[in-house]
């Protein structure tokens, strides 16, 4: 269902057409990167480190090079050392230099005639390692005797700066008011320590690319990526090439969720293609995807929340450490910026620590860092509500920020829809229904910033009155349909008369990665701007034909209309058919840096049954309310909400990285790393809340990410309601629940 505020009467926006790229996907014709076959193509395979932390003493590739079918072997020595330059760490992650920093770190790559030959040759490479001590947990890596990962790593954000290197990347602190005073004024104070493990994005399509490097020194890369412009610049940087030597063609992408915003394979394929003079394809195995690509970080969080008896939150104190994986990142900073955002408070002291350790380097995963933070915050808020006897929705409404209030991370809140989400859940069928027997109910809210950034779009009108919309945003969940709907609304053309296309790096203007829930918002803005430019051109053509002032021409429902009424309306098709004679083809381009991405909020309610004999949980019912601003294609908005929720359910209940004592991942398959399957779940009920974003021509705010933020706490709160247990370590897997039940009995 949709909880819709009054809004303009749109003809196309808000409808649910079949997506343009859908047909190819249901008949098996959609082309993903692994599907591409080029004449003479070689297959690449990567040799990866078996050690969590080791010095590379020597690499001998001679045996591999002599093996049948082998055309090229590369190691870290074949790539420039970028030092501290941009993408320097990325380069060392793509292929290790003097050290390997996690099990699965790429050490060498082989290109051969077949995949099998490449694998056999990779296994024939002899690497001498000097194994070093390693850290797998936040406590280990922060301890003073931890083995240092990066010699020059001096913690940022500490005054005076430390003189010795450590594994602590940075300390971040957000402070408001006086936290001690807040606790002194509180009637209730609750505090707990929480932990979460890394979680893999779990896209079903493994990373894949094909590179074809020509003798002119240029290369063409086809790849599975959320942002081909970033692939272009990052690949060029890692190779030490000029960006203009790299052209990237986006293939269909089989899921990303943030995990395909970086590169792993492309420079290796390009370099081996250059050396062999043949195209090179590299496709990861699932095992490699788990061991070597970006999980979202594990975390350790200590939170303390104070409140008055009327439910007013007085203050929050947080200590939050986030794993960054093998190279420095900023996960903890994002945690600090999101942890208390759904609530107003006078006092806060939020301290974050980013740490490196011997695991694969983080990649973004849907609202990165926010779910763990919300897990801690919304669990404690539930505890506060329980202690003072207040309804969990009422306490959230009581502390709900509104427009103009200061956001915890600095700016003032623009128009936001959190209150509406809370009310939608409060008034939902689900919340009004009794909690099923032997089950518990949980509530939580979540926040995500959403971003704008750079986008480009080109809209060309074809001679038959149809339009082609080219953008630079890879479509990872139906955004082409949204682009077509906005263009249809602007131009007054049927949505199926519009062909939405994702253009490569040489046919469309620079466009940032599809991330931060930005594509429909920012790239949509570029599409609208280009369409508005076109409408002006169309009116001008009509005014020339009618020999009147352009101001007398209106654009109505796909037609130029003479407002004084002296001329018969001209259809878009009539104008484009005559375009050659009236001034040439009609096309427009817009490139912009989108500002005013509307923040996203969401509130969830879930009913969970817990089997006290086995610790097994069952999600009985789930409802999510999320502010979409305006839902351009409601089916795909619901799809984002449902997908986010189910990823959150997996995170809460089952998914985790398990390492042995040597730092080797023990569950690197979908059998052992268990993501939710259809039989685990009920339908995911959705309530699309629409509080339009005033900064977007159609009121869009991003919808891709926030849905994964509330489930962790919502489920923990439901488990508490069902069992009385406060589960503060994820996942809440059957053995953990069983153990906690056992302890509770003792």
């Amino acid at each position, binding site marked *: 269902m949709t909880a819709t505020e009054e809004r303009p009467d749109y003809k196309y926006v808000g409808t649910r057409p079949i997506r343009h790229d*859908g047909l190819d996907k249901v008949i098996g014709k959609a082309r993903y990167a692994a599907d591409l076959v080029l004449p003479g193509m070689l297959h690449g395979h990567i040799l990866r480190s078996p050690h969590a932390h080791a010095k590379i003493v020597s690499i001998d590739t001679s045996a591999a090079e002599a093996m049948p079918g082998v055309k090229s072997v590369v190691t870290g020595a074949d790539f420039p050392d970028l030092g501290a330059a941009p993408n320097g760490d990325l380069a060392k992650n793509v292929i290790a230099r003097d050290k390997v920093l996690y099990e699965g770190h790429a050490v060498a790559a082989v290109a051969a005639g077949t995949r099998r030959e490449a694998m056999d040759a990779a296994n024939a490479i002899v690497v001498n390692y000097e194994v070093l001590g390693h850290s797998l947990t936040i406590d280990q890596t922060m301890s003073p005797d931890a083995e240092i990962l990066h010699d020059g790593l001096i913690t940022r954000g500490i005054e005076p700066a430390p003189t010795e290197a450590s594994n602590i990347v940075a300390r971040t602190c957000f402070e408001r008011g006086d936290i001690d005073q807040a606790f002194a004024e509180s009637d209730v104070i609750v505090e707990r320590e929480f932990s979460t493990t890394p979680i893999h994005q779990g896209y*079903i399509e493994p990373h894949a690319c094909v590179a074809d490097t020509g003798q002119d020194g240029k290369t063409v890369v086809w790849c599975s990526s959320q942002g081909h412009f970033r692939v272009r610049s990052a690949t060029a940087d890692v190779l030490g090439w000029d960006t203009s030597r790299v052209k990237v063609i986006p293939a269909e992408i089989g899921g990303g969720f943030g995990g395909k915003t970086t590169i792993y394979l492309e420079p290796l394929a390009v370099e081996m293609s250059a050396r062999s003079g043949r195209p090179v394809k590299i496709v990861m195995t699932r095992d490699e995807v788990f061991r070597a690509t970006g999980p979202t970080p594990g975390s350790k969080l200590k939170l303390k929340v104070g409140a008055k008896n009327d439910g007013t939150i007085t203050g929050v104190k947080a200590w939050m450490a986030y794993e960054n994986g093998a190279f420095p990142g900023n996960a903890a900073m994002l945690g600090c910026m999101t942890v208390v955002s759904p609530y107003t408070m006078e006092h806060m002291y939020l301290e974050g620590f980013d740490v490196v350790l011997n695991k694969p380097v983080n990649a973004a995963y849907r609202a990165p860092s926010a779910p763990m933070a919300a897990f801690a915050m919304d669990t404690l808020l539930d505890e506060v509500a329980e202690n003072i006897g207040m309804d969990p929705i009422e306490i959230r409404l009581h502390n709900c920020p509104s427009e103009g209030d200061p956001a915890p991370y600095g700016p003032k809140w623009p128009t936001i829809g959190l209150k509406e989400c809370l009310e939608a859940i409060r008034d939902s069928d689900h919340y009004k229904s009794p909690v099923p027997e032997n089950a518990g109910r949980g509530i939580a809210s979540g926040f995500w910033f959403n971003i704008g950034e750079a986008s480009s779009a080109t809209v060309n009108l074809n001679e038959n009155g149809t339009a082609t919309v080219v953008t630079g945003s890879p479509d990872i969940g139906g955004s082409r349909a949204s682009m077509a709907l906005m263009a249809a609304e602007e131009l007054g053309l049927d949505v199926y008369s519009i062909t939405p296309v994702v253009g490569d790096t040489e046919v469309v203007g620079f466009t940032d990665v599809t991330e931060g829930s930005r594509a429909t918002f920012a790239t949509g803005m570029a599409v609208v701007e280009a369409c508005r430019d076109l409408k002006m051109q169309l009116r001008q053509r009509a005014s020339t034909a009618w020999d009147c002032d352009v101001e007398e021409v209106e654009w109505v429902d796909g037609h130029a209309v003479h407002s004084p009424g002296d001329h018969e309306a001209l259809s878009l098709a009539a104008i484009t058919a005559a375009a050659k004679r009236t001034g040439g083809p009609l096309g427009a381009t817009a490139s912009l840096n989108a500002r005013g991405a509307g923040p996203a909020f969401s509130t969830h309610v879930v009913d969970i049954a817990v089997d006290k004999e086995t610790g097994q949980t069952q999600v009985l019912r789930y409802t999510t309310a999320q502010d979409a601003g305006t839902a351009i294609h409601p089916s795909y908005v619901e799809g984002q909400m449902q997908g986010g929720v189910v990823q959150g359910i997996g995170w809460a209940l089952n998914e985790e990285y398990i390492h042995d004592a040597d730092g080797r991942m023990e569950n690197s398959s979908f059998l052992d790393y268990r993501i939710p*399957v259809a039989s685990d779940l009920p*339908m*995911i009920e959705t309530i699309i809340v629409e509080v339009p974003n005033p900064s977007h021509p159609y009121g869009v705010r991003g919808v891709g990410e926030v849905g994964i933020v509330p489930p962790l706490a919502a489920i923990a709160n439901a488990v508490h309601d069902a069992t009385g247990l406060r589960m503060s370590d994820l996942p809440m897997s059957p053995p953990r629940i069983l153990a906690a039940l056992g302890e509770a009995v003792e």
Partner: protein
Amino acid sequence: MSRTHVICNINGDDVEFLCDDGESLLDALRDDVGLMGVKEGCGTGDCGACSVLMDGKLNCSCLILAPEANGTDLLTVEGMADGDHLHPLQQCFLEGAALQCGICTPGFLIAAKALLDQNPEPTETEVRYALAGNLCRCTGYDKIVRSVLEAAVQIRETV
């Protein structure tokens, strides 16, 4: 290395190909026959993206050796539509927005066909269990399950 000669019927056509003895049917379909609609998500039988019907039975093609296909009838997603006429499952997936990235879609369509061929009137729970061997990370399964139930209704109405 000598290669094995396999003769089978795929999507209604007689097909011959040569394969290595240790090669999976998935690799043979993709690399030797060129049916790229059969997807690889894991190669270990855990994701269902490579689902095919072999003599009418649902199988993960990554778990079958290519030579085992000799003499069998195979159906892949490429063979589901009748010319331009989509199978009701394909049409319902499109209308029901049951795909986002689409990488899991061929496997789900084949698994759902296997279910409906055998049980034309499944309950929601039966659909969920029949599809439990297929992983989708994008949709949360809601729209997939609804689309399969809707296709079942349409198929029943047309016969």
